[in-house]
């Protein structure tokens, strides 16, 4: 049921929503999250971001997170698209769509999916800032906390 794709090319959010809903009458709400490359001002502002991934593992890892979401909420459709390669500020980087009969499952599952994708899918970001320095992005404790929140809440 779920669509999971890794691609270098941009995605069209409207087209993906249309693909998720075409011919369906059981959907009452679509949850949508689009992650975007954030730039920033000054010498530390990001100019370019390159995403590396473990191609043999990535889709399977994401499908596991989707399966977990499907076990927690009554979803009738789900799309996850994650881009790799070199991106610039303003570029969309990840798309999460969920479809359900009602809004709350769709919205909650969307937040769950992006929180868990951040800590359970094998991607790594390297940023190049305006001062020309390139560095690997470190894991953020707040991402771990956001992901862990879903462990304790039972949802």
């Amino acid at each position, binding site marked *: 049921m779920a669509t999971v794709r890794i691609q270098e090319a941009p995605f069209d959010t409207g087209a993906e929503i249309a693909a998720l809903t075409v011919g369906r009458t059981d959907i009452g709400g679509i949850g949508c999250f689009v992650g975007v490359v954030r730039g920033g001002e000054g010498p530390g502002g990001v100019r370019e971001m390159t995403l590396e991934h*473990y191609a043999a593992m990535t889709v399977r*890892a994401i499908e596991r997170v989707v399966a977990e979401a499907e076990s927690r909420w009554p979803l009738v459709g789900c799309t996850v698209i*994650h881009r790799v390669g070199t991106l610039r500020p303003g570029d969309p980087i990840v798309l999460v769509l969920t479809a359900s009969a009602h809004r709350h499952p769709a919205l909650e599952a969307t937040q769950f999916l*992006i929180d868990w994708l951040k800590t359970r*899918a094998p991607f790594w970001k390297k940023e190049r800032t305006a001062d020309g320095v390139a560095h*690997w992005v470190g*894991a953020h404790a707040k991402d771990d906390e956001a992901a862990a929140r879903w462990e304790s809440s039972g949802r």
Partner: protein
Amino acid sequence: MSARPVLVLYFAWLRERVGMSEQRVDLPPGVNTVGGLIDLLAASSPGHAEAFAVRATIRAAVNQDFATPETPVTAGDEVALFPPVTGG
């Protein structure tokens, strides 16, 4: 004892520090876990030693499943070593 080859893959800054994206390793007797393999690799060159200096920053997957230092490793396995993931 017969050879026990595994394929080790490196990602992100770990790949840059060891200077290669993959290597084949023959598991010696007594090396049967991810942690044991990392100890073996860390002792294999100065670059590896530096890359693995802070073990708490190393994550692993065995045959495309997330693993821990205690996860068993056996002949034919694909063992990926990498920093904490930063996607999304």
